[in-house]
């Protein structure tokens, strides 16, 4: 990553010709960058996979592996494809330039490279790289790594695909009265701690957080990437969340604050997963009856006075031994048929 503070970047010069290599390295050195050099394409790829670079200056005409092949390999490698490449070559023919650009090169400089032009192009490429890095960091903050990766690989498109997954809803019991009884600053702090604990538990078991709103959150297990054993993963997550809240409450009690209780609803089945919203603002989510059921189960935890409720589909797919309590059929709003529901008993609670 370029050092934003002082503009020093890590550059790699790839050229089989010694005079070209020395001169290019010298010019970049003079700009204040840290420069490494490689003599051919194969060595360049090895070096790029070993160390991180902000920019590569690549010759085309080289023995063993030429620049075209290097560009192809860089593009096929997820860990390398974001590194910008400026081709520096004295290849004859416009078609070669076009081919480089089509293979993903950021820019093309004809050798002998004019030092002033080189400086401008390098600066522009590094600036673009910096913005892209920033964008990626931002995406990681607002999307989970799985969604960020899915976006990077497949790009963004509204619409969804059908998946089999498990959905979880969770919220804080009596959150409104808690919020009313304390200053908003304290509520924000409480929410942040709560979310940190919950995100940890969800991520730990391969789930992604799809929505947070107020004190509620929705998590998906099994999309955008398939997750074998998504039912077990969701139930284990729920149990971890309850345990974390118990530990959190020990702290809160010691500080004389009221305990926090949460309710969790889990349902499994077919749903449509994808980006919903507009082209300007969208979120990765799941839609379908299963999702609605999970939400209803979460709401029903208050009535049932249980912390975790799951549907029959989730129960049937469980491999783990979990203490379950059959609560019988539940008529869910918006559903014609009633569904069998089960309470998962947290460890350490009497059955």
């Amino acid at each position: 990553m370029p050092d934003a503070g002082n503009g020093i970047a890590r550059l790699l010069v790839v050229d089989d010709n010694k005079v070209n290599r020395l001169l290019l390295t010298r010019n970049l050195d003079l700009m204040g960058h840290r420069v490494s050099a490689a003599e051919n394409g194969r060595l360049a790829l090895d070096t790029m996979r070993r160390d991180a670079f902000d920019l590569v200056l690549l010759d085309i005409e080289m023995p063993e592996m030429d620049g075209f092949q290097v560009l192809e390999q860089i593009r096929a490698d997820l860990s390398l494809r974001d590194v910008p490449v400026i081709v520096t070559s004295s290849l004859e023919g416009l078609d070669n330039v076009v081919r480089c650009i089509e293979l993903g090169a950021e820019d093309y400089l004809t050798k002998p490279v004019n030092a002033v032009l080189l400086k401008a192009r390098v600066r522009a490429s590094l600036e673009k790289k910096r913005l892209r890095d920033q964008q990626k960091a931002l995406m990681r903050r607002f999307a989970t790594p799985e969604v960020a990766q899915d976006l990077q690989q497949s790009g963004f498109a509204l619409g969804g695909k059908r998946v089999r997954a498990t959905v979880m809803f969770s919220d804080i019991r009596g959150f409104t009265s808690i919020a009313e009884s304390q200053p908003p600053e304290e509520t924000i702090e409480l929410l942040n701690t709560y979310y940190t604990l919950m995100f940890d538990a969800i991520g730990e078991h391969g789930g992604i957080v799809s929505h947070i709103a107020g004190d509620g959150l929705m998590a998906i297990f099994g999309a955008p990437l398939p997750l074998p054993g998504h039912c077990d993963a969701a139930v284990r997550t729920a149990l971890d969340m309850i345990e974390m809240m118990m530990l959190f409450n020990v702290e809160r009690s010691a500080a004389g604050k009221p305990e926090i209780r949460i309710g969790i609803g889990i349902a499994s089945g077919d749903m449509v997963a994808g980006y919903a919203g507009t082209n300007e603002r969208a979120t990765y989510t799941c839609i379908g009856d299963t999702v609605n059921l999970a939400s209803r189960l979460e709401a029903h935890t208050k009535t049932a006075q249980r912390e975790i409720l799951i549907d029959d589909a989730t129960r049937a797919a469980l491999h783990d031994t979990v203490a379950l309590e059959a609560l019988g059929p539940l008529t869910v709003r918006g559903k014609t048929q009633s569904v069998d529901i089960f309470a998962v008993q947290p460890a350490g609670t009497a059955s």
Partner: protein
Amino acid sequence: MTQPTIDLAAFGELQSTAGAEFVCELVDTFLVEAPLMLDELRLAYASGNADTFRRTAHSLKSNSNTFGALALGKLAKDLELGGMTPVREANGAPLDELELEYARVAKALGELARA
């Protein structure tokens, strides 16, 4: 020969951007590398290795132009684009011409770098 052996403007530009001392070292490197390239060209020509022939001529062209050795660069470019057939048709004359021009370039560069 209409082209000067070394284009002084191009050479001066190189010195001012990369530093005269560095250019001195770069010339020394070129004077070691270029004879190897000329040998490689001869070898590729003798063994009929068109790919190496083209790549080596390309490399020599690129370095010649870096130092402002435009005539040498032009001869190398002709070899790069024309391949070995015209050389064979002329009984190897273009390679002789290239070597002669290189001798002039080597002498001129040696003097200029240390001027």
